[in-house]
């Protein structure tokens, strides 16, 4: 409990921003969904067949996984708030449409007949009779939608949309339960508060209600618009990073190095991109300008090519060339450490089966279970190729989220995991990293991917970032990762300390 409070105090600012963003996203999405769903229900209330069709359509939209929608939207509308809102609006449509439609069509037929018999105008019938009678159901639909959206909005953080999801995702990534809980509890509290608030609102008359909602929408829209405008105006450089402690450290190093050379430049960080595809698309779509990427990933994921060798320097050259030829980006100079894939087992298993290399592992693989992270599981330079090369036949294999697989290992649900050579969990859980004796795994060196247009505008950025060339050893990276992910120190500080200790900044 105390760590909970401490955390909130320490991260007060970030939490406040995230809260506002989250509230804003949720309210705007529900408001937009109302603007679409309610008039639609009104239009279809006298057409039962079309109404049924619409109910089916909105129902189907609900079943599409939100990540899929987000992934589909990014190439069209970019990252950040816009795709998040679109996805949330789609989700809020069904409860609102369904309830409004039911409310409007389930009115006592006698009452509707009387309204017709009095020769009332359609406007009167709709606004003074049907809508007021349908209001309780409409309200409950909005409440359901709001609670749904507040929960789903946690995903916005994966695509740079911000919100409370940031804490949840980072908490999972860094094994920081306090952080995770803060995000989750705040999100749940928000849902409860809004649900109650709506209930209180439902006691107001229709006119007062319309006023309140109108004010809210204008206020929010204004705040949001202003924020977005501000971001547009002052944005000069955006550095993005994938989920995890290591990208965070690198991002912060990049920022300090750039601002040291060019203090007037505004540099914004957009962390926590959920996966390579999201972040690379954002780079290609000019939503972000720089992010750290691995040579191996370039040649396996981004522009798949057969590796000409397994020598790290040559692999870098190959990656550098393909980037130059096929994109509007430049791959700057690499750092010293490699964050390769490796297979790791817990100490117990290593001792029991005398495991030192992956070949050793292959022999006993039918008796063992493995858990691999998603990218690794699917890649040719990951499990797929490794399986064939070493003839691995595990008892069972699962793919899961990066940090969850370490939990599985700890609980002895699996004995083998994939690991990155700079993973601090190696240090924490005292894992045994198996030697890749058949030299299967390709090199994975890190370097900044930068948009050419940015380099043209600010050529000094190249020099700033290349200061990291050949810097940071594997053990240094493990140590920094350990500080951030396990000891929960702030990435910004750890990055700063490193740069200072090597006099890369003054």
């Amino acid at each position, binding site marked *: 409990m105390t760590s909970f409070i401490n955390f909130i105090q320490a991260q007060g600012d970030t939490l406040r921003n995230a809260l506002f963003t989250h509230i804003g996203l949720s309210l705007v999405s529900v408001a937009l969904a109302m603007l679409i769903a309610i008039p639609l229900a009104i239009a279809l209330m006298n057409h039962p067949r079309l109404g049924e069709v619409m109910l089916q359509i909105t129902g189907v939209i609900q079943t599409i996984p939100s990540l899929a929608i987000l992934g589909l939207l990014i190439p069209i509308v970019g990252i950040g708030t816009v795709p998040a809102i679109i996805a949330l609006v789609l989700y809020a449509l069904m409860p609102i449409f369904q309830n409004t439609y039911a409310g409007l069509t389930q009115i006592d037929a006698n009452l509707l007949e009387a309204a017709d018999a009095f020769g*009332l105008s359609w406007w009167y019938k709709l606004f003074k009779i049907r809508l007021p009678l349908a209001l309780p159901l409409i309200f409950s639909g909005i409440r359901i939608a709001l609670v749904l959206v507040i929960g789903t909005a946690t995903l916005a953080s994966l695509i740079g949309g911000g919100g409370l999801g940031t804490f949840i995702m980072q908490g999972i990534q860094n094994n920081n339960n306090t952080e995770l809980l803060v995000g989750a509890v705040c999100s749940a509290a928000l849902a409860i508060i809004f649900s109650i608030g709506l209930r209180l609102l439902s006691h107001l008359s229709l006119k007062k209600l319309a006023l309140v909602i109108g004010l809210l929408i204008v206020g929010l829209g204004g705040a949001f618009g202003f924020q977005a405008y501000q971001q547009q105006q002052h944005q000069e450089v955006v550095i993005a990073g994938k989920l995890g402690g290591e990208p965070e450290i690198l991002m912060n190093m990049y920022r300090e190095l750039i601002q040291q050379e060019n203090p007037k430049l505004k540099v914004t960080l957009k962390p926590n991109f959920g996966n390579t595809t999201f972040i690379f698309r954002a780079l290609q779509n000019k939503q972000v300008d720089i992010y750290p990427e691995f040579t191996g990933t370039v040649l396996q994921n981004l522009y798949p090519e057969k590796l000409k060798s397994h020598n790290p320097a040559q692999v870098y050259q190959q990656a550098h060339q393909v980037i130059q030829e096929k994109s509007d980006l430049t791959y700057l100079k690499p750092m010293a450490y490699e964050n390769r894939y490796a297979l790791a087992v817990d100490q117990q298993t290593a001792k029991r089966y005398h495991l030192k290399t992956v070949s050793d592992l292959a022999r006993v693989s039918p008796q063992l279970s493995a858990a691999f992270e998603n990218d690794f599981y699917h890649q040719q330079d990951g499990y797929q190729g490794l399986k064939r090369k070493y003839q691995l036949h595990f008892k069972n294999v699962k793919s899961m989220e990066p940090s969850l697989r370490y939990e599985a290992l700890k609980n002895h649900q699996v004995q083998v995991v994939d690991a990155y050579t700079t993973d601090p969990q190696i240090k924490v859980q005292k894992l045994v990293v198996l030697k890749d004796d058949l030299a299967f795994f390709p090199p994975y060196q890190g370097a900044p991917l930068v948009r050419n247009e940015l380099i043209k505008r600010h050529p000094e950025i190249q020099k700033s970032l290349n200061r990291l060339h050949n810097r940071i050893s594997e053990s240094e990276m493990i140590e920094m990762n350990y500080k951030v992910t396990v000891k929960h120190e702030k990435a910004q500080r750890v990055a700063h300390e490193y740069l200072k200790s090597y006099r890369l900044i003054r």
Partner: protein
Amino acid sequence: MRNTNVETAPLIEFTHVDKAYQKQFAVHNLNLSIRAGEFFVLVGASGSGKTTTLKMINRLIEPTAGTITFAGRPLVDQSVNDLRHQIGYVLQDGALFPHLTVLENAAMTLNAIGVSTKDAKPQVASLLDEVGLDPARYLNRYPKELSGGEQQRVGIVRALVANPQVILMDEPFSALDPVSRKQLQDLVLNLHEKRQTTIVFVTHDMDETLRLGTRIGVMHQGHLEQVDAPSVLLQKPKNSAVSKLFLQQHGHTVSDVIAHGYYETGNGDEIPRVTVEQTLADLAQALLDAPNAAVLVNQNQVITQALYLEYMANQQE
């Protein structure tokens, strides 16, 4: 005295009107004139087409054949809402809107012609008074706080407040208890006498029909069987369909005498006959005229004067 002298030009006229659903006729070849100022009652069993007929007047239902005119103009020649502004409507359940006060409910027909609820208040208040509801106590109440009878009174106020030429009433008192029903019938008779508004009233209750109507239209299986004043209907029912209706509701015919056993067996030649459907009045008259003060019913059932008097003496009214 109920005014039965009315203008000769009909206010509402049905000419060869049909209402067919798929292959069934709800109403078939209906020809009917309703005159201004009269209290016209449409009576019949369920499914006889009386409610369908009523609803064709304000176009809640459209005929599949024939024409209907209102004040000389065919219904289809005017806009539906314009027509409905001139026609009041009272339903069986009152149909008051639960989310509106008595005032807002009653003022609705005035709202429909552009009068605001605020401006309508004096008229609504005075009408509420007329129907026996104290405005001070009722104006701001909600329908769920009112009894069935009170709700129906508000329904009547709502129908009257815009001063329509005609009021349609669809079994408005059927859901009420007998006491309330009688009170409301009195009320409606009163209003009719004061205002001379044309009323078209639908019911299946014979007693109500005879009490209220200045002219009565009897409907049976979609056909209008007979249209006459109440006394004429009682004395001269056109066919068995009509008389059966009275029979079912009243039970005071020769068949009732037979049913209670007041007859003896006899041969049938020389005495006058009566049929089972004839009324007691007919029976009494026949007995007075008969030479042997006995009449024959069916093949061999004979009712004598003495038996008749016995029957009457034992009647529980």
